[in-house]
């Protein structure tokens, strides 16, 4: 431990801690626009300067040392910070009123905190062409302050290497390699860049107007589904605490927006488990050489696999994601049951994710109903805007239930939204399929939590099933390497079943989640580990208290098979609920 003084307070922190982090232990938040707890310091913005033993230094990248004396604020420091801020603002458009980040922007917060009124510096801001080529995330380089967070996340945390710096000095901007469009780059649309961006430079591709148009079209029958991770984050926009599970209020809000039926993606999660566990058990029993099997519900992971890991395509579960399953079932089974013309049915999904926007148009398989199975996929952030626009008093809403039959779900389904959840849900059902008995212990502590790669061994009546869980897509590389190495050495596969989620923490920390700052949350806006844990807890608690915690006991799912699909993995199930993968290049130019 290192002892030092920060603003005359005694601080005792582990060696290697930065001054910025050390100051937080005495409730001092040194301003910064580039340092984020998820990424290494880039020393990009210059706001975090402090006086260290008399010298002005950047606190984000200066480690503490014994006996150090730090002043975090005095008139000169504030003056320098204000000048730095003015310089940043001189290269930023003055468009707050029409910016999607307004009210949720770290740069705006900072300008307010420092009372920047009018800067005398002339504007150097350059207009760049907006890159909305992915139709999932939008990159407006003219709003970028080159803090480097997105590049750090994309290159180092996610290991995707879509984003990079172009040029140098004032001309520096963030783009895909050589300034090409993101859609032509290795971008997997995970949106972690947008989750970490301090300004409006990288945001979701807004499709709320499309949804309004469908809702207002009297000829259409528009239904909606919400993903598990949405319910534990949406409340943050309406003053609820991080991780509070607001399923009932969200249903009520969606009904008030005018959706004819309110469904739940969790129904699709249960359906996914039935199909995926069946597929796994079949491979495990009949064709162990085809293991490990990878989960396939994360579209960013699907995209990464198709671009980077062609040799692993046969290991992938062919199951579609819960979102896509609900879409396919809504336009077939549900439409038939209700006597609706599927051509008039519109399925909207609310997702914590930007990559889900890409998933719904990924291939012809996403039109298995004969129509596009999911018509529009909006993020949690977009839904909260719609709720606010409609003037719905979310806080005061009474809980409502989802509609039948695509609304029923088990506890196993709701934990799909967090790392380890899909594997836990799948193991519960796979155990039942293999042994005909229920698991005694329903939770797997080894695969819970924020460790990048988690492993567990499950004893299924004498047979050991080895599973791995990877999240933060950069971590998947190590798992793949182990699998490849075993294969090359002619050894048994190190794992039988592997869950992958592209975002650290899973969908609860997806690229489309709110970026609210709470009074007791002085860290940067957007996602941090603290919030990841809280949102995940909201889902685990729901599972713990659920009447039914097994996908295979979902009565509506049983009815769906009895009335329509036949058996799990049947021909009809394959036609509607499964997909296939093709190798694709990293760059299209």
């Amino acid at each position, binding site marked *: 431990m290192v002892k030092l003084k920060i603003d005359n307070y005694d601080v005792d922190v582990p060696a290697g801690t930065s001054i910025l982090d050390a100051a937080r232990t005495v409730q001092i938040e040194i301003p910064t626009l580039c340092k984020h707890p998820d990424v290494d310091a880039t020393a990009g913005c210059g706001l975090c300067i402090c006086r260290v033993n008399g010298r002005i230094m950047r606190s984000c990248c200066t480690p503490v040392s014994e006996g150090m004396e730090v002043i975090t604020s005095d008139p000169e420091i504030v003056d320098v910070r204000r000048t730095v801020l003015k310089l940043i603002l001189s290269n930023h458009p003055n468009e707050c009123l029409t910016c999607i980040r307004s009210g949720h922007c770290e740069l705006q917060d900072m300008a307010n905190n420092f009372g920047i009124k009018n800067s005398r510096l002339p504007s150097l801001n350059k207009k760049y062409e907006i890159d909305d080529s992915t139709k999932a995330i939008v990159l407006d380089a003219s709003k970028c302050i080159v803090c480097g967070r997105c590049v750090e996340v994309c*290159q180092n945390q996610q290991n995707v*290497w*879509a*984003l*990079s*710096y*172009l*040029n*140098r000095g004032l001309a520096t901007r963030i783009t*895909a*390699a*050589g*300034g090409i469009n993101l859609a032509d*780059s*290795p971008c997997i649309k995970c949106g972690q860049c947008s989750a970490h961006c301090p300004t409006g430079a990288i945001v979701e591709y807004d499709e709320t107007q499309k949804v309004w148009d469908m809702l207002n079209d009297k000829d259409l029958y528009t239904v909606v589904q919400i993903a598990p991770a949405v319910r534990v984050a949406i409340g943050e926009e309406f003053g609820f605490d991080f991780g509070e599970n607001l399923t009932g209020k969200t249903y009520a809000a969606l009904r008030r927006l005018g959706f004819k039926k309110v469904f739940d993606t969790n129904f699709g999660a249960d359906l996914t488990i039935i199909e995926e566990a069946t597929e796994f058990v079949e491979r495990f029993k009949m064709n162990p050489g085809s293991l490990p099997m990878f989960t396939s519900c994360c579209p960013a992971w699907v995209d990464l696999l198709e671009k980077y890991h062609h040799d692993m395509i046969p290991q992938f579960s062919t199951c579609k994601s819960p979102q896509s399953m609900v879409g396919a079932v809504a336009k077939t089974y549900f439409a038939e049951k209700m006597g609706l013309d599927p051509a008039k049915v519109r399925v909207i999904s609310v997702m914590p994710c930007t990559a889900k926007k890409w998933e719904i148009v990924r291939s012809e398989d996403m039109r298995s109903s004969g129509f596009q199975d999911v018509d529009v996929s909006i993020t949690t952030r977009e839904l909260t805007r719609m709720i606010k626009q409609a003037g719905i008093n979310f806080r005061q809403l009474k809980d409502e239930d989802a509609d039948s039959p695509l609304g029923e779900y088990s506890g196993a389904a709701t934990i799909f939204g967090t790392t380890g959840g899909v594997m836990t849900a799948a193991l519960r059902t796979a155990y039942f399929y293999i042994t005909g008995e229920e698991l005694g212990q329903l939770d797997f502590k080894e695969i819970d939590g924020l460790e990048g790669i988690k492993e567990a061994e499950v004893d299924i009546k004498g047979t050991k099933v080895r599973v791995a869980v990877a999240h933060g897509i950069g971590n998947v590389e190590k798992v793949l390497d182990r699998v490849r190495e075993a294969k090359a050495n002619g050894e048994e596969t190190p794992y039988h079943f592997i869950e992958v989620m592209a975002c650290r923490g899973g969908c609860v920390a997806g690229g489309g989640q709110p970026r609210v700052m709470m009074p007791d949350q002085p860290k940067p806006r957007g996602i941090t580990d603290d919030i990841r844990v809280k949102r995940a807890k909201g889902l685990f608690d729901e599972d713990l208290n659920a009447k039914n915690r097994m996908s295979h006991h979902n009565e509506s799912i049983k009815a769906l098979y009895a009335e329509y699909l036949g058996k799990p993995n049947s021909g009809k199930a394959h036609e509607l609920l499964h997909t296939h993968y093709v190798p694709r290049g*990293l*760059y299209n*130019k």
Partner: protein
Amino acid sequence: MTEASVASQAAAKWRKKRGSLIMALHEIQSVKGYVPWEDAVEIANGMGVPLARIYEVLTFYNFFKLEAPGKAVISVCTGTACYLKGNDKVLEEFKKELGINEGESTEDRMFHLQVVRCVGCCGLAPVCVVNGKTYGRVTPGDVRNILNEWRNKLADDKE
């Protein structure tokens, strides 16, 4: 040597040495005069370096060129003497005649226009240099003649 093999040879030569991406890129540019997209992709695959990183390097150092330079490189001196003697007007005339800015090449890749600071013969100011040939006491009126001279020369070379 075929075009593609320049990059693959450079990649093979440098792939084992850490931090030598820039050397491989130098080799491509020294042969081709610039680093084409296809060659950058080949280096990425051959050296196991993400293409995004390669373009970070290529656009950070202004030595690297991403497009084929013109065959005739026109250097207009804007050093103190040449500038005072009116070379800024000569530069403007080149820009107007060629329809390009400094640092750019014409679409037919015939001319590349660049600005230099002093070529060491201030006595001849204002000075322009085209592919090593020096023109002294240039006036805006000379620009068209210089360009025509090089158009003819490049056409002859072709034949």
